[in-house]
């Protein structure tokens, strides 16, 4: 039965305590819950593989852990350099540090602060021991105990465990030793620096000369001249103004009348007249045949023909002229925005010409300023170490360099050895 299924059937001490007083039951549950909470991300013995998980979790969370200076993992061979988790922070302790010349108190405090994030993850007693053990480390003693003559000599006696760990885990070992040596370096770092600055006399003279030129140039600057609009711009502007102020009217329409309209109208009227005459002749022929020529009947028929012809002529002429007017008006309306666009194009061209003139005027005015800019730029191109000198003492953590170099070398050597 899996764990999850099992808990539904769990027969626990709590269940068996139902016959006990309520306060005892509550107390029992509270104690059990507390034990569960304490067990989170911790690993009991026998959990070899999962130990890495718990150790990792402790490292990540920086959870509080009871520091134990013994276990498995990084060992410094007894009285050498090591780490011990003292209280809530990881620090270095070196009882004989004063004589060892390591400034142990400062180092311990520095590391305790710097490595507070790691907190007791590494030194978390059994959990961390198991965790590091899962990484393949040997026995651990994080404490710096005994009289350590020096970091290097202590490490020299550190034994094979730290060496093996360092080869197998160069990044972890590098981080640890980097922190240690960094702290050592920080404790010995100088608290002040010396800096000397001077300016080359020739450079200084050029600066002063340039300053004089700047003053002269500034004094000689005249008011900026504004270019006047050209004839192209002015003409287009005037026409555009006039066009905008003139309402669309008869004159605009008249420009688009069909010049052949009269011919068209007259042609149509001629056709009607010819038709009327042909009808009239037909009427007379019919009247003659009916012996009614000259009578009232012939007069009535003739009158009707003439009246129809006149009406047709009037209608046709009106339609033709109306259509001509409408067409001319539409053409006029369409032409106006085209006229405006053309004038605006002319305005743009005129503006460009004016801008060119403005640029010419500005160039003439700014000639002195440009010359000054060139000399100022040249002064900015001062050669290195000519105009200024500076000295600053440097500090190098030789121990840190040596340790990291040694570890890296050992690791590379182990790889080459395997190859």
């Amino acid at each position: 039965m899996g764990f999850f299924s099992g808990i539904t059937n769990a027969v626990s001490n709590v269940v068996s305590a139902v016959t006990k007083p309520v306060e005892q039951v509550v107390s029992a549950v509270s104690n059990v819950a507390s034990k569960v909470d304490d067990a989170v991300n911790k690993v009991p013995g026998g959990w070899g593989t999962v130990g890495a998980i718990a150790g990792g979790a402790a490292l990540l969370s920086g959870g509080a852990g009871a520091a134990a200076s013994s276990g498995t993992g990084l060992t410094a061979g007894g009285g050498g350099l090591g780490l011990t988790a003292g209280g809530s922070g990881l620090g270095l302790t070196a009882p004989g540090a004063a004589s060892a010349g390591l400034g142990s108190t400062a180092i311990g405090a520095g590391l305790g602060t710097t490595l507070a994030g790691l907190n007791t993850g590494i030194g978390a007693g059994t959990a961390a021991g198991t965790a590091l053990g899962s990484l393949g480390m040997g026995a651990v003693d994080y404490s710096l105990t005994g009289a350590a003559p020096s970091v290097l000599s202590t490490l020299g006696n550190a034994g094979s465990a730290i060496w093996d760990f360092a080869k197998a885990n160069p990044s972890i070992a590098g981080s640890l030793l980097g922190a240690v040596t960094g702290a050592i370096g920080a404790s010995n770092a100088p608290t002040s620096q010396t800096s000397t600055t001077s300016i080359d006399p020739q450079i200084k003279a050029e600066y002063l000369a340039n300053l004089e030129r700047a003053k002269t140039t500034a004094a000689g600057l005249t008011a900026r001249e504004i270019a006047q609009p050209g004839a192209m711009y002015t003409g287009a502007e005037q026409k555009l103004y006039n066009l905008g102020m003139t309402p669309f009217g008869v004159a605009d329409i008249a420009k688009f009348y069909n010049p052949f309209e009269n011919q068209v109208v007259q042609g149509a009227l001629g056709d009607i007249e010819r038709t009327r005459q042909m009808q009239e002749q037909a009427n007379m022929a019919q009247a003659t045949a009916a012996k009614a020529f000259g009578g009232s009947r012939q007069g009535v028929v003739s009158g009707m023909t003439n009246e129809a012809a006149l009406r047709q002529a009037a209608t046709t002429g009106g339609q033709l002229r109306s259509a001509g007017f409408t067409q001319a008006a539409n053409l006029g309306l369409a032409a106006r925005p085209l006229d405006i666009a053309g004038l605006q194009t002319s305005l743009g061209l005129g503006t460009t010409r004016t801008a060119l003139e403005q640029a010419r005027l500005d160039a003439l005015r700014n000639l002195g300023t440009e010359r000054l800019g060139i000399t100022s730029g040249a002064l900015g191109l001062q050669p290195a170490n000519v105009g200024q000198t500076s000295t600053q003492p440097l500090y190098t953590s030789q121990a840190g360099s040596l340790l990291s170099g040694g570890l890296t070398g050992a690791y590379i050597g182990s790889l080459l050895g395997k190859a």
Partner: protein
Amino acid sequence: MKASEIIGQYSQAQGISPQNAITATNNAVSSGNSILLQENDTVFVVTKIKPGVADVAMFTADSPQVLQQSFMTLLNKLRQSGIRIIYGDLENKDLVSLLQQSGMQLSQSDLPDYAWRTTI
């Protein structure tokens, strides 16, 4: 939240006695066969079956968004520890669902005490 609170709350939501769940968890951890892993408000009870193989039960009070992240973190920790095959129960529906959403194929358990197994 504390692990006991998460286990109690989740168990109650699943219709399981919180006291039973907490006590059973404590017994399992005390016996040395199980460990608790917590990320955010999600707890994995990991019970060792054999090297590289474990029974995993999940209790959570995380929101769905946080749960996804907690689940992946805990799953990665299992992988980093060398655990490759996990077993579980069908009653642990949220765990089953998360495993399937993560693209893992659950198959019938070849061990009598469990409902499913999967390779992580």
